[in-house]
């Protein structure tokens, strides 16, 4: 293969070192600090530590016993499935569709980007107003269609779904842009020669587009599941503190809660460590699933 060009490893240092320096100084070193914190007693963000926990792994045991943590993990796994299907899946469909039309492609590409740009607080407010119990947009529309009683969209039976829906919707544009970028790589000629052989549009998509997109899709899925572990701003604005009754916790929101609300920073550091570990594991799994794509 082309490995000959790159046998000389000297330039390797030049390429890797700058990025690594930045990441070590500003990410890894602070995170090591974070790991240490999870073994100590710290109350609020910024306070000094008050000595080691007793026993030092106390927070980790707490995590396994914490009922809310279990809810959070379960919900987050559901969220991962939602993001894979709802964000990446929908984005793939949209990207392929946009790729196959002539007029208006640019318009759609521009417009699909909008949701990511708006801050979570504003989006949260908008969705709160849409799902508002009294005079919310959805309830008003339903009333117009003749439904008599008001639905509380934020009660236990609907909460999880309503929380995941906006998160799902917001980031479709993100994966859409990445996928569109990937679609660039597929040469026109492949499609043309397939046309000459008599392939239909659907066949072209299935046998050319999707396989060649495999690497990019893999990237997207990795980003999606790791994102599900971290997401907190939009769910928090709509469903603060795991309302109602602690049913809507996600790993991201629960960690935020432990940092700022219950002022239990050492416990939240432990949760952060868990999130990182889960992130690495899931991304490895995803990569294995998509492995055959290596050229």
């Amino acid at each position: 293969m082309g490995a000959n060009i790159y046998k000389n490893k000297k330039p390797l240092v030049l390429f890797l070192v700058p990025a690594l320096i930045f990441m070590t100084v500003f990410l890894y070193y602070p995170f090591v600090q974070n790991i240490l914190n999870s073994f100590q007693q710290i109350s609020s963000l910024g306070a000094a530590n008050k000595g080691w926990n007793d026993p030092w792994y106390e927070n980790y045991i707490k995590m396994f016993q914490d009922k809310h943590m279990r809810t959070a993990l379960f919900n987050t796994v559901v969220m991962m499935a939602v993001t894979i299907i709802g964000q990446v899946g929908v984005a793939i469909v949209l990207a392929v569709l946009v790729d196959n039309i002539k007029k208006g492609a640019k318009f759609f590409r521009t417009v699909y980007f909008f949701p990511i740009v708006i801050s979570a607080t504003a989006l949260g407010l908008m969705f709160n107003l849409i799902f508002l119990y009294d005079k919310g947009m959805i309830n008003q529309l339903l009333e117009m269609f003749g439904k008599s009683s008001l639905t509380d969209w934020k009660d236990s039976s609907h909460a999880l779904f309503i929380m995941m829906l906006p998160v799902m919707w917001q980031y479709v544009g993100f994966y859409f842009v990445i996928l569109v970028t990937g679609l660039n790589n597929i040469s026109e000629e492949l499609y043309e020669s397939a046309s000459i052989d008599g392939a239909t549009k659907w066949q072209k998509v299935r046998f050319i587009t999707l396989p060649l997109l495999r690497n990019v899709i893999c990237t997207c899925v990795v980003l999606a599941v790791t994102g599900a572990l971290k997401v907190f701003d939009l769910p928090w604005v709509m469903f603060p503190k795991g309302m109602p009754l602690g049913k809507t916790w996600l790993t991201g929101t629960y960690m935020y809660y432990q940092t700022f609300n219950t002022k239990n920073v050492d416990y939240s550091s432990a949760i952060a460590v868990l999130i990182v570990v889960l992130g690495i594991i899931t991304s490895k799994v995803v990569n294995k699933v998509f492995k055959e794509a290596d050229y």
Partner: protein
Amino acid sequence: MKKKLTALLLAGSMVLSLAACGGGGSSKEEGDSSETASLSVTTTFAGEDGNAQNYKNAIAEFEEKEGIKVNDSSATSDETFKARVETDFQTGSEPDVLFFFSGADANSFIEEGKVVSIDTIREEYPDYASNMNDDLIAASLVDGEKYAVPVNGYWEGLFCNTAVLEAAGVEVPGADYTWEQFLADCEKIKEAGYAPIAASLGEIPHYWWEYSIFNHTSTETHLEVPASTDEGNGPGWVEGMEDIKELYEKGYFPENTLSAKDDETFAMFTSDKAAFLIDGSWKVGGIAAACQSDPEDPSTLDTDKLDNFTVTYVPTNGEREATDLIGGLSMGYYISAKAWEDESKREAAVKFVEYMTSDEKVALFAQHTASALKEAPEVNEEDFNSLQIKSIKMMADVTSLTGAVQDVFSDECRVSTFDGMPQIVTGEVSAKDAVQEGLEIYAEQNAE
């Protein structure tokens, strides 16, 4: 490739050129400021705070009068802000003057001795804060010393929508409002088709929590956190939670109180759907704004609409009188030890605090809320709207102001009873267990 490189170069040169202009500018500034003294100040008078504009004006006046430059890093008080202040003290980058909470939030830096007490300041400046009534200045939880000079305070009372009360045939409560009368009134209001109480138990149960407990303690003992549910105020706390549960079971809270946000339930109150609202003095502005066609412009006030609101005393079913309210002065100006020990800053810092806590300034900031002034200046009724006047009248007959025990009951302790309020009122968790959990955490924290 060329395009990319040019883009990068352009960006780079843009940054550099801006840096050049900026660099030139800032070195000029620094040249100036090394001649005039400068003071770094952080307060919470920013953003939407009612006094943000007053504060900005006061700083401008001060800078002109004394020739001292004020570097103002004020920001809205939220959790990020508190974290930032604490981190500043930890890393030695604290401000010279700080306007901050005087309760549990200040513990960390008081414990480390990073701020000077008022007594220490008075050794050098005997007149410091002499216009304040010392008894009303909050003592720190750490060592009982006083550190922060207060400006404005707050009270919590019962706001009423008199239009709704009239429609339900209920009289506006007075100074001798009892719990039984309250329950009877709520029943009437409910039957008339309104929500008796506007509150979001899922988001902000704070005020009901406070008063329900207050109803079973007394003004002397209210701030004592019991060691367990069987000692001291313990049983009172449990009864308080059960009172709220009773109200919930009777349906006096809005239907969606467990999942609605506070803004929603407040809107119910201002749009004549609910009768009672327990909230603080800061809400007066909010209610007035709800009656203005342009919330930013007080001259658009619909006075007739505002006249439908009043504020009065909170019903009692215990030792306290209805006229004993929760309130106090929970924030104040600190001077950091760092500034105090710096000869060049000491004088400036003291001058600044004295300026901001002068009679004139305090009256401007405090208005219809509470203050620690020994002699409050006269109130000119024309400067205030009808709700503010009613508040001032109510405050005149208040028999006492007791601090809120939730201010000493830290966030961690509050989890089981605040965040867990929905579980308590639906019976999922017993009031006794929830209270016990919170008290245990408190005991643990204070055992050190």
